[in-house]
């Protein structure tokens, strides 16, 4: 089902965020097996994907668009360091603007339009009531720096990875809904450096293989993967910068409130080669689903139970689930006939 944006809901304080039945049906449930294991689970992001699915277009605009843009505004006002672009990434930022605007205008003509006359571009975002004309490639003609300008109009976090010496460097991005990582901390790091904290995978050679693959991605052949964790409350901004605001949420889970408190957090990550700069655009589109909503699908409920029950202790720790992992497994067990 294609989703129309609905009025603003919140991802903090009173947490009014909710998923409609249509949004639940299209949720990208990430587990192909009952036991979760690491893999380089990358596949071509061939668009258009199935109609109405989160894979239909390069950028998924859904019912939470206005809510996520409002949340992004709050985060950026609190801490402008959540968006940054090193000076040498300017051309890559324009690549991102070109790719995003052209995709959005082609895929959602009811919401976005783009008129190109040589270097003179006119962009209309009817959802946010933005209407701007600018000179392509000239950042001084935009009302905001290019990364922030585009990032404030697309759901999900974005990073631009500079490619040099056969490696990737995190040199630009807008990151306001991360699963516990910091753009300001990781800025300038290489691929293996920013993956440093991930347990087990280095020893398995996962990152060496992934890096060779990613540096060879050609223009026009984006790839995707899903990542996941659990989040307490429908909180988009679980970043190290705001840890004092959400770290204690994990102690608020009880046997009675697992269903409404605990959310499966899925990231649809897409890597797309930028034609003009040769950078890689890395988009991280986050979907949140409460366990109450998740168990409306019996297959998901059963599998979620089995995945959590067999999750290696290192991953329970890394994903920050220690405080409530047992409660979540116990709560889910009632939906698994094998128990």
């Amino acid at each position, binding site marked *: 089902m294609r989703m129309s944006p609905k009025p603003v809901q919140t991802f903090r304080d009173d947490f009014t965020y909710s998923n409609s039945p249509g949004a639940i049906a299209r949720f990208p449930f990430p587990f192909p097996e009952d036991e979760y294991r690491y893999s380089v689970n990358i596949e071509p992001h061939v668009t258009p994907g199935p109609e109405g699915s989160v894979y239909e277009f390069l950028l998924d605009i859904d019912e939470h668009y206005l809510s996520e843009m409002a949340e992004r505004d709050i985060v950026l006002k609190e801490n402008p360091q959540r968006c940054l672009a*090193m000076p*040498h*990434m*300017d*051309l*890559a930022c324009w690549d991102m603007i*070109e790719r995003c605007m052209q995709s959005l205008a082609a895929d959602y003509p009811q919401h976005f339009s783009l008129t190109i006359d040589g270097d003179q571009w006119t962009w209309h975002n009817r959802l946010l009531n933005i209407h701007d004309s600018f000179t392509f*490639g000239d950042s001084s003609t935009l009302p905001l720096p290019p990364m922030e300008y585009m990032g404030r109009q697309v759901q999900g976090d974005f990073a631009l990875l*500079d*490619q*040099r*010496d056969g490696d990737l460097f995190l*040199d630009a991005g807008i990151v306001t809904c991360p699963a516990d990582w910091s753009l300001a901390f990781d800025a300038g790091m290489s691929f293996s450096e920013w993956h440093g904290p991930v347990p087990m995978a280095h020893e398995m050679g996962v990152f060496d293989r992934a890096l*060779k693959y990613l540096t*060879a991605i*050609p*223009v*026009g052949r984006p790839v995707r993967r899903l990542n996941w964790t659990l989040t307490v409350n429908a909180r988009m901004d679980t970043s190290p910068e705001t840890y004092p605001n959400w770290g204690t949420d994990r102690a608020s889970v009880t046997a009675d409130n697992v269903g409404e408190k605990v959310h499966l957090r899925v990231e649809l990550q897409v890597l797309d080669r*930028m*034609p*003009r*700069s*040769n950078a890689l655009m890395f988009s991280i589109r986050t979907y949140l689903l409460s366990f109450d909503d998740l168990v409306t699908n019996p297959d998901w409920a059963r599998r979620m139970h089995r995945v959590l029950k067999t999750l290696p202790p290192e991953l329970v720790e890394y994903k920050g689930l220690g405080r409530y992992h047992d409660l979540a497994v116990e709560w889910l067990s009632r939906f698994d006939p094998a128990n």
Partner: protein
Amino acid sequence: MSIDSIPVRVAAIEAVAPMIREFRLEAIDGSLPAFSPGSHVQVAMPGEQREIRNAYSLCSDPRETGSYRIAVRLQEDSRGGSAFMHSQVSVGDRLQITPPANFFAPAWHARKHLLIAGGVGITPFMSYIPELERQGADFELHYLYRSSQTGAYRDELMHRLGQAFNGYDSDAGVRCDLSVLLSNREPGSHVYICGPESLIEGVRETARALGWPESLIHYEAFAAPEPGEPFKAKLVRSGRAVEVAADESLLEALEREGIEVPNLCRGGVCGQCVTSVVEGSVEHRDDFLSADEKASGTCIMPCVSRAAGNHLILDL
């Protein structure tokens, strides 16, 4: 060609040096994709005995996507590609090219770019220069050529770049002293080399001796595979056998037999054509596989590498 191939029409041909012709290629349907400086395309040429595919750097301004330009030097020992481009291709002809790919992009964070071109190795820098100018970047071009054969675009570049242009015509006895060129450079300088293997090696050795870190040295060799001894490749999955001639690569021989192997650079860099080896020893000539992978003998880059003996058995 792959499903991604782009049909183009030859819109103009110009002799830009005694041995170099420039071809302007226009899209037949729609426009051509944007590209980054240093990108190349593969051009497919229907040769007499087999289809030939060569990679050529795009030598036009990346902002100009109405057409692409490539420049082809006639090689004395041509394997067929450059001879075909020089003698068989006329204005109005159709050719198939791949979308641009890049293994020689600028280091955007460099504070200074030293571009060293040898002969037809000027081509990737023809796409660098307009973008570096747009960004107001600090750069110098050092252009080594023989005016009796190469030296394409030198008048235009001299005029355009002024002080940043440094030409060395060896036919006029003008030599480039690499140790002077590479000495006393300010921190943040990067050097790029495109040209014959001897020039690349010369710059790398001089730079190394002067204490340049490897991460500041970037180079792109001409991608044509070197010839070797003929051998036979047996393919376990299809049960077929392919004879690889001395003057063709394993990849070309497989393609001649209709066996498609993914590939981008055809020069041992991109890693796309990696193929599993079941039996037989490999003469590795690529820059992609790690030393451990090469020693294990379990895979080969068929675009440049060959059998070390008279046969290989491949998982194809």
